[in-house]
């Protein structure tokens, strides 16, 4: 073996060691700055972490595209059937007057809000696109109260990192980080295209997270929990989606 190849071997050895320890340090820093998704384990963890970390760095404050009124889809796809549970049917029969959203976890004032109460808070609307992971998409006007408003009312603890949100449908829940939770376009949505939010689109109350794919906008919301750790929820992967094989972060 010549000198040149030995030198090369040593150099590449140092490069590999530096690379591996560099990755280790990068992982520690990423964890500290909240750039690692809860479903980072397994063979797809590398891709998920790269996607979530880079999009968090690029899009922390960016706003989802908003469209003009003329671009609203003529027929918004109502891709949901009404939850078959008796509890939902009873609430629906009464016009959802008894629908409540409870908020607990790392907050100063845990509470419960009726739809009527939510509607007394400053109402916002946005004309944004729902994009499904399957490939289809439509544009609608969404009306609701920003989630940040409700979170500020209950007083979120400074160490909070995620908001978990639950549907009246069993085993349908999700969570988002505080960047999305406090984002001005993240709505507790109760209206659509100037009317009540139809059941087929997730009414009476749907979470709307327009910077992520449709499945993040969970329908029939009844409960929120603010937390600093998602380990205790379900299988600890952040939401029901990874338990069904889907990514927790749906920004792409």
């Amino acid at each position: 073996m010549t000198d040149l190849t030995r030198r090369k071997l040593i150099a590449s050895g140092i490069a590999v060691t530096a690379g591996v320890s560099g990755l280790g340090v990068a992982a520690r820093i990423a964890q500290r700055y909240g750039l690692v998704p809860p479903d980072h384990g397994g063979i797809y963890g590398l891709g998920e972490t790269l996607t979530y970390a880079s999009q968090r760095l690029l899009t922390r404050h960016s706003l989802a595209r908003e469209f003009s009124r003329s671009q609203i889809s003529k027929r918004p796809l109502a891709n949901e059937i009404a939850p078959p549970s008796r509890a939902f049917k009873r609430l629906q029969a009464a016009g959802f007057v008894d629908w409540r959203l409870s908020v607990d976890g790392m907050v100063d004032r845990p509470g419960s809000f009726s739809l009527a109460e939510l509607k007394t808070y400053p109402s916002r609307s946005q004309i944004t696109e729902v994009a499904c992971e399957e490939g289809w998409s439509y544009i609608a006007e969404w009306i609701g109260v920003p989630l940040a408003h409700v979170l500020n009312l209950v007083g979120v603890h400074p160490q909070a990192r995620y908001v978990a949100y639950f549907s009246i449908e069993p085993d349908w829940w999700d969570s988002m980080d505080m960047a999305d939770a406090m984002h001005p376009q993240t709505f507790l949505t109760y209206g659509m295209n100037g009317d009540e939010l139809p059941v087929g689109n997730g009414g009476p109350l749907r979470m709307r997270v327009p910077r992520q794919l449709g499945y993040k906008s969970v329908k029939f919301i009844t409960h929120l929990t603010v937390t600093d750790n998602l380990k205790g929820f379900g299988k600890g992967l952040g939401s029901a989606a990874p338990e069904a094989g889907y990514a927790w972060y749906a920004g792409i």
Partner: protein
Amino acid sequence: MAELESLQAPLGVGFPSSASSIPAPTVTSRHSVLVRVTHWIITLCFFALLVSGVEILISHPRFYWGETGTVLTTPLFKLPIPSSRTLVPTGYGYVLPDQNGWSRYLHFEAAWILVLTGLLYAIFGFFSGHFRKNLLPAKADRSWRAFSTAIAGHLRFRRPSDAEAQSYNVPQRLTYLFVIFVLFPLVIWSGLAMSPAFVSAFPTTATLLGGRQSARTIHFFVSLALALFVLVHLVMICVAGFWSRTRAMITGQTDSRQEERT
């Protein structure tokens, strides 16, 4: 052994002029280490992207133009295949099993590895002279005549001469340049245009392509073009000698005398 090493200069990508200066050119260096390693990583990623892409596609085998499109709107065209979702009316009496979960995980992980590897290759290609020497047609070959002669040879499935086996001809060079600098950037761009978060930060990614659904349709056609390229690439390798070419891309060497016989 020493002779072999000297022939395998790290950036010594084989092409006729350098090959002829080496005494006894039975074994020549065809592809540099970086080209070979990135080639196989990208090959692996491409097939992962292709398989997962097809799986994602069958969950909604309809295409639209513009910003939006659902089963309630008229599609630009439909693929005559069954779907993995009940939502889509395909005319088939059955629904395929949903594979989108792992397909999406794999699609984006493979895309990351491909993009990072591609960047490494591009940086190497620019600074080592790989693009200039091996892919940009030589000055004398930048004519229609040289181009048409080579195309005619291809169409007759003429086996390459010894010199040609060590280098790329003009249509080959142009095809590689088109794949590297047009198709790959376009497939990455149209893919990113479907990311709601990326588009929130860079809206023009989607608007320049005509909207989200246009981006999806473009993504489909560019992927099809890339798949077609791979198919032609494989056919060409078979015509030129499958094992010698595959060996050249693995070990970096071709044995020119042996190739004549196989």
